[in-house]
């Protein structure tokens, strides 16, 4: 009896649930609102932007890094062009100097094409008729032979100038002509009277292609260039010096010292250190430049002491680095300061009281209470700022442009110059992408390293409360 009751109750519940689905019709908005995929729907717009502006660019960087794309190759497909340099390459790379010699020639062939073109251009019919009758199908290896033959005609051109014009119609060459496909260039060479083996065909295609191809040459080149090493050392020096001195170090000093101040002055000092961050970067750097110019603040101040006015910013590599690190550090410190200050605020005041009661001086409080509690924020700032310093080059671009003499050229700046903007206008997209790819890899590796170093697992360990 009892069982039946329970079953019938369950039955009713089931019926009630089924009944709900035949209830009032929901409109599409309500359906989305009730869907278990609601989260996905809400994320969709962000997802599209992430895809467009992050995932696809990163993937394309990965792909482009393995190509030789440049302004010369274009980014779409290329054409086939036999010219001086590709024929040189045919000799050098494929050991086919003889073939190159053959193709490189200009010959004069009396053929129907030439006759038709000449007729259409208004050359006298009699001349062309005689030329056809006597020389059709004949080839001359150079212009002089062809001219000599034509001079012997009864209906020859009236003067030397007309002769030269006529000869031009029979000039045949594959050099310096763009062909849109492999078939066209091969047909042209064949028509030129050179027959090619399959091997030779492949070699011709290889050297005459003007578009981009996949290759790992970028990385070989990166390793072999001495500039790479210098840029790498510059980058590491810049990132870690700025990070340790300012983005973490000075930020900690600011956060801790304002913690021990009264609320009013503390707020004032924090706001002051935020100003560089809210100043437009172009103006911010411009002010540094004014400070450092030969007619600028530093020179004016030092003038009465007998110091020659000079451009302090670009005067020497040491000065340039000092300015670069100050420019970046003054901006960078504010973020760490904010994060660290709020983390210190989050420490319960009872912990500070307890440590005072336990006999801790301020220095001991900082060492034993504040710093250990800031482990996670410090990890965060270190990770975040390493990555942002690695990839930031706007202040370099605005201040030193990598100078003097490339002494402040860092990896991101060099990538930008190589790929997107340089004096010669020869942009190497492929090589630039390869350089950028290295930055991505370094960033990922550093992040993993930091997580290990700061013992991330124990920071986020689940409590074992009994």
């Amino acid at each position, binding site marked *: 009896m009892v069982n039946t009751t329970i079953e019938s109750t369950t039955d009713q519940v089931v019926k009630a649930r089924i009944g709900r689905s035949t209830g009032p019709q929901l409109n599409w908005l309500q359906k989305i609102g009730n869907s278990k995929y609601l989260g996905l729907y809400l994320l969709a717009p962000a997802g599209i932007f992430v895809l467009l502006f992050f995932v696809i660019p990163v993937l394309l960087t990965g792909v482009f890094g393995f190509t030789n794309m440049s302004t010369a190759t274009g980014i779409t497909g290329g054409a086939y062009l036999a010219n001086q340099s590709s024929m040189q390459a045919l000799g050098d790379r494929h050991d086919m100097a003889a073939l190159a010699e053959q193709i490189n020639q200009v010959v004069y062939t009396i053929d129907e094409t030439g006759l038709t073109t000449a007729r259409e251009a208004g050359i006298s019919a009699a001349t062309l008729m005689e030329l056809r009758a006597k020389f059709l199908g004949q080839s001359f290896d150079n212009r002089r032979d062809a001219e000599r033959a034509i001079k012997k005609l009864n209906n020859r051109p009236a003067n030397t100038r007309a002769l030269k014009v006529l000869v031009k119609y029979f000039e045949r060459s594959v050099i310096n002509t763009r062909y849109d496909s492999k078939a066209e260039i091969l047909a042209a060479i064949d028509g030129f009277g050179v027959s090619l083996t399959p091997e030779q065909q492949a070699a011709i295609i290889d050297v005459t292609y003007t578009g981009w191809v996949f290759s790992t040459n970028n990385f070989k080149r990166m390793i072999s260039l001495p500039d790479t090493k210098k840029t790498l050392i510059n980058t590491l020096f810049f990132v870690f010096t700025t990070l340790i001195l300012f983005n973490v170090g000075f930020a900690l000093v600011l956060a801790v010292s304002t913690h021990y101040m009264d609320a009013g002055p503390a707020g004032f000092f924090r706001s002051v250190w935020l100003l560089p961050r809210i100043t437009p970067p172009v103006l911010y750097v411009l002010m540094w430049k004014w400070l450092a110019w030969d007619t600028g603040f530093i020179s004016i101040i030092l003038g009465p002491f007998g110091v020659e006015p000079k451009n302090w910013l670009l005067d020497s590599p040491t000065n340039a680095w000092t300015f670069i690190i100050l420019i970046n550090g003054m901006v960078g410190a504010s973020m760490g300061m904010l994060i660290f200050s709020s983390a210190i605020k989050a420490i*319960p005041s*009872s*912990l500070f*009281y*307890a*440590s*005072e*009661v*336990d*006999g*801790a*001086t301020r220095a*001991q409080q900082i060492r*034993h*209470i504040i710093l*250990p*509690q800031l*482990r996670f924020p410090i990890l965060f700032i270190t990770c975040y700022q390493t990555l942002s310093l690695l990839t930031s080059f706007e202040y370099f671009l605005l201040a030193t442009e990598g100078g003097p003499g490339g002494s402040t050229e860092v990896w991101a700046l060099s990538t930008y110059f190589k790929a997107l903007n340089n004096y010669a206008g020869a942009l190497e997209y492929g090589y630039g992408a390869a350089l950028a790819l290295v930055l991505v890899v370094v960033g990922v590796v550093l992040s993993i390293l930091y997580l290990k170093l700061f013992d991330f697992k124990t920071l986020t360990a689940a*409590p*074992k*409360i*009994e």
Partner: protein
Amino acid sequence: MRILLENFTKKFGDLTIIDGMDLEVHDGEMIALLGGSGCGKSTTLFAICGIHKVNGGRIFFGDHDVTNVTTQERNVGVVFQSFALYPHMTVENNIGFPLKLRKESTGDIKRKVGEIAEMVHIEALLQRRPGELSGGQQQRVALARALVRRPDVLLLDEPLANLDATLRLEMRSEIRRIQHETGITAVLVTHDQTEAMSMCDRIAIMDAGKIVQITEPKDMYDNPVSDFVAGFLGSPPIAFLSGKIEDGHFIEPSTKTKIPLDHEMAKSNNGRTVSIGIRPEYFQPNNGTAVSGKVSFIESQGRETLYNVMLPDGKILRSIQGEGSVAKIGDTVEWGINAPKILVFDEDGKRI
């Protein structure tokens, strides 16, 4: 060590929290500062340990004036309401922290931490972090940290407020046991009268920054100086009735019941409007002067049952009775007041 507050004054900005308080805690005594929130009891505690600087008066530990001694040098042990354990340190390092700051040797620290851990029964937990401990265990660690360097005084700020009911009962006797074992002078800040009465040698009850009465728990319960003290102590609380004294009796205004009062007192206060306090245990069936009213509320507390009896004018008398009581809500009952136990207060709430 004796603690003495002399004319102690504390202000926050323009607001005077405590104005000229005097308090003496004898050597080896445990005293409770009891009062509602905002009465200044925690402020007093923080002033004793030096976290708050005083705005006037002096503080002595023994004969030593510590008014201007920093917290760090005052040698007090404090247990905070939230325990304030250092979350990034193990239990062992938490307890050893005050010793480490004093630059004691690692061996000494280990030995002392071991001893104190044994005393508060947490030997097995030394390698854990606070986040891995229950509330009661955290409480014991906090106590051990406060005691490890043998402080002159032990200060406890609502130490049981964050614990559940069973643990509170257990820790109550534990703290008292440890205080007895160490013989330390202790100050307990609490808003819970049961805690104050069960744990301490004396209670200082505070209201609006003043000590209203300071005496032993039993004495304070039986002889409160004011209706505030009488109302604060006792659970369920005391019930008050107001009326006039006429011819040696208190006249209950709605039922006109005459309740006999102490002869001398009634004579000298004849005709005066007073309020009388009747504790629930002194309002029982078959007990002295009978008052009749309707049972308006019944609350079973297991062993005992609490009855609210409403008089015709809406005033409530409370009665707490053991098993065997059968009154129901709505019943009219006629229970008696144990007249000699009545507490009489004047219009200002002062005990007469």
